[in-house]
């Protein structure tokens, strides 16, 4: 391990100063992935910048019809946030399924996105919610849709020294979402397959649906073929049709992978879980299904 310099920044101003120095910056927040890579010698930082105390990059709020989540917000904060639970339920559920309690107390949403793991749990949730990533750099801010943010296996569109500042999620009162995953066991497990579904409804009818499946490649995959699901009553059959469509999506996306036969069945299970959860929650809100 080479030696390196490390600094901690408290404000956006501090960060801007560093950016002007023309040094290659490596950012650390929760460090739950980064420290492992560092110890294995897979990363060798020149200047390590601790952003975990950067208050401008933290917190959850609602602004102009969007939920704003700071990049260094931890998954424990997301999992317990009443705003997220209300408007972006699948993200709260995904957050609650990441790693262990100890990991969730440290790991941040920005880190999870930038790490760009194909098995990341937050990504399909953000995909289903049509999230937008706000990127901070020396030239100012730019916004990227979450599907375009990840460009390859473990690669993002971030340019040198750029950093994720916020994630924006449109909040719609008639939308509802759910997340489910399967790993080797029920907790503290890496996803073999995960699914997030976000839908717009009127009474018991689905008006729009956005389903994102993780672990099938470099990025989550969105279900494009929603024929037969729109304007349909959300009953058991709805879940079956969704499962069928997702199963086909899995088969087309990873036709030659050894895991395809399993995933093409398991996705039906996840579709059932997600729809059962949505239906239960909607009935709880007094919507008869």
């Amino acid at each position, binding site marked *: *391990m080479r030696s390196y310099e490390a600094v901690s920044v408290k404000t956006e101003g501090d960060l801007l100063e560093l950016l002007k120095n023309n040094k290659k910056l490596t950012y650390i927040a929760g460090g739950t992935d980064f420290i492992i890579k560092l110890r294995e010698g897979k990363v060798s930082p020149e200047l390590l910048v601790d952003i975990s105390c950067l208050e401008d990059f933290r917190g959850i709020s609602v602004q102009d019809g969007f939920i704003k989540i700071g990049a260094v917000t931890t998954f424990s904060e997301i999992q317990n946030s009443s705003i997220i639970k209300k408007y972006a339920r699948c993200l709260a559920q995904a957050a609650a399924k990441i790693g262990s309690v100890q990991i969730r107390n440290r790991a941040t949403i920005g880190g999870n996105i930038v790490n760009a793991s194909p098995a990341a749990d937050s990504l399909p949730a953000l995909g289903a919610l049509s999230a937008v990533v706000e990127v901070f750099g020396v030239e100012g801010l730019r916004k990227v849709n979450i599907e375009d943010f990840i460009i390859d296996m473990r690669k993002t569109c971030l340019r040198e020294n750029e950093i994720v500042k916020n994630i924006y999620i449109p909040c719609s009162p008639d939308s509802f979402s759910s997340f489910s995953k399967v790993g080797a066991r*029920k*907790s503290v497990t*890496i996803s*073999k397959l995960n699914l997030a579904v976000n839908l717009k409804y009127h009474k018991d009818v689905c008006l729009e649906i956005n389903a994102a499946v993780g672990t099938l490649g470099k990025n989550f995959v969105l279900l494009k073929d929603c024929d037969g699901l729109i304007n349909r009553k959300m009953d058991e059959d709805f879940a079956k049709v969704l499962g069928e469509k997702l199963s086909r999506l899995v088969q087309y996306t990873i036709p030659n992978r050894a895991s395809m*036969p*399993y995933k093409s*069945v*398991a996705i039906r299970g*996840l579709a059932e879980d997600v729809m059962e959860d949505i239906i239960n929650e909607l009935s709880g809100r007094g919507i008869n299904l």
Partner: protein
Amino acid sequence: MITETELMKGFKYVGKSIPIGDAEAKATGTVRYTGDMEFPNMLYAKFVYSPYPHARIINIDTESAEKVPGVVKIYSYKNTPKTTFNSQVWFLGQNAIEDQVLFSEEVRYAGDFVAAVVAENKKVAEQAAKLIKIDYEQLEFVINPKKAVPFFNVEFKCGDIEKAFKGDVFISEDTVETQKIHHAAMENHAVISEFDPVSNKVIVYSPCQIMFSVRLIVAKVLGLPLNKVKVVKTVMGGSFGGKQEVILEPYAAFFAMDLKRPVKIEFERTESIRSTRTRTKTIGNVKTAVDKEGRIVGRDIELLLDTGAYTSNGAVISMAMGRKVFRLYKIMNQRYRASVVRTNTPIAGAARGYGSPQIHAITEINIDNTARRLGIDPLEFRLKNLVEPYALDPSGGPPLGNIRIIDCVKKGAEEFGWKGKWQKVGSGGRYKYGVGMACATHVNGYYGAYQDFTTMTLKMLEDGTLILNASLHDLGTGTTTIMKQIIAEVMDVDIRHIEVPEGDTETSPYDVGCHASRVTHVCGACAKMVSEKLREQFVNECAKILGVTPYEIVMEDGFVYTLQNPDIKYSYGELASLIQRKNHVELIQTITYESKDNPASAGVNFAEVEVDTLLGLVKVKRIVAVFDVGKAINPGMVEGQIHGGIQMGLGFALMEDLEIDEKTGQLKSDRFSRYNMFNAPEMPVIDVFLIEKGGDLGPFGAKSIGEIATIPTAPAVVNAVNNALSTYMCKMPLKPERIIAELKKGR
């Protein structure tokens, strides 16, 4: 021998759930494990491992590694002894294939030791290890045991199986496969060795299971007489057989002797998973012949064992497995054949149960499958065929003693509610429900196979406190607490007054070691006997002091009085001091106890599962476990062992797997993020019941629990899953992918 009637009377210290002696120190971090120990001037060693499953080393270039400041010396096949050894040998004169050396030019699995850097600190050692350049010539390799050539074959039999199979019988055949798994002790492997230049002696500090095995192998590799190697057993953070074999000790000892400085080796998880030992992979074919009355009239078992890259215990474990099959059911015509092969995979070795979990998985899955093929209840099928107390082993092994497997099964079936639960499962929704059961038997020491004896010295000090000197190895299971309870019971004194250290090879007497589920049964019996001897000596000496006959002396709760004057009480200390001053006698007894029986421990698990037919996940809802332990010296510890055994068995059944890629020879699950075990939220409800009927030679009737605790779980769970899905899956673990693939076949 203790009878059931005597057991009913109860005891003062035996049968009480006294907490494990060092539990608080371990929980609060006060205990110093080997990894925490620091010696002045200590060096650190880091290994370089083979990236290939089989290769010849053409050249090792250590030039740039040696230039790293702080590097002291680099070891490889070029500068280390060529002495061959077998890491599982535990006594001098044991016959074993010796195919290991410290470093070889030929590496036999991905993870094999190629070189070691010894440096001033761990970081430097790690950094330099990465700079060593090695040229390999890759050689052909074998991963699949079916493609390897056996180096050892064994056959045990009783009766006439050909005749049994020719009769009017139903023959039920299964081929069961069990995988390699990691022991996953919380403490990774660690060792420290130092050289004492005054006595020219090597000292090894190791959390080991057999200190005399460590002494033997270190002395052999270093070319020293046994009295120039001193092994100290350090606090153990779990072993499960993983630290039974001598793995890191000869390296640390050689480096320390060569450099005349203390050397520490401490593994990280990936190293422990890949480069220590694994459970032996087995493929077993079973044919069972059943007559019209549902009696098993014959059984033929053929096994293939994969011992990995080196011989290790391959031959010994194949025999240990074979002995179990004659000791659970009344099968008068039976044959067991096993072939052992080496493959270019991580080395197999001792693992909790020493082959018993594998052989019982193979036979108990077949028992359930047979019952289902015959359309009879597996419970009834077992009850008809299980052995009765004091049955003999038809293959000539030691008598089974007071084996109470039928009592276990009846008690378990009742508590579990088997009658209402086992049924043919119909078609249903996504979640299928099933129940399964499995029985098991295990040993109590080596009697009948190898020499099994131990020596102990117990002394009472002049203040009345006691010290036991014995070569005990507490693996975290509470061995030393058990010994205290036994001594306390005999001496009628509070356990606070008894000290039971673990000992070392220089100052403690010989013991066979902590394996073969022998410690409570054999060492415990020795502790009881030496206590009885000391009690007798104490009584005799007290009688002289008090001027009465020994028959008039009463020992009670740490006090002595005479029948004539029960109101005048002397503490043990008052009298011990008087005995020293007036009688000029030390209160000390040494005895060697040789085990004369090897009764069968026995037990059963009943499992209730729910299978998700879409995700392929199995939720284990409840396990009822009943074990015949003769007498629980410490019921709390026994229950703890059973809970832990079930946790290990569940992982074995459903998720733990050291899977090696057949094309590349690489281990996929070399870290805990890829090697998932049952964690707390995954655990089922567990109900434990004990059958305590004594009847054998263990202390107060005690029999083993540590190993058998994990044996019946995996087959019980596999049987429950097969019951739920109406399948006959026999390849462990039953991972979601396998379950879904099996269900697809059926569709």
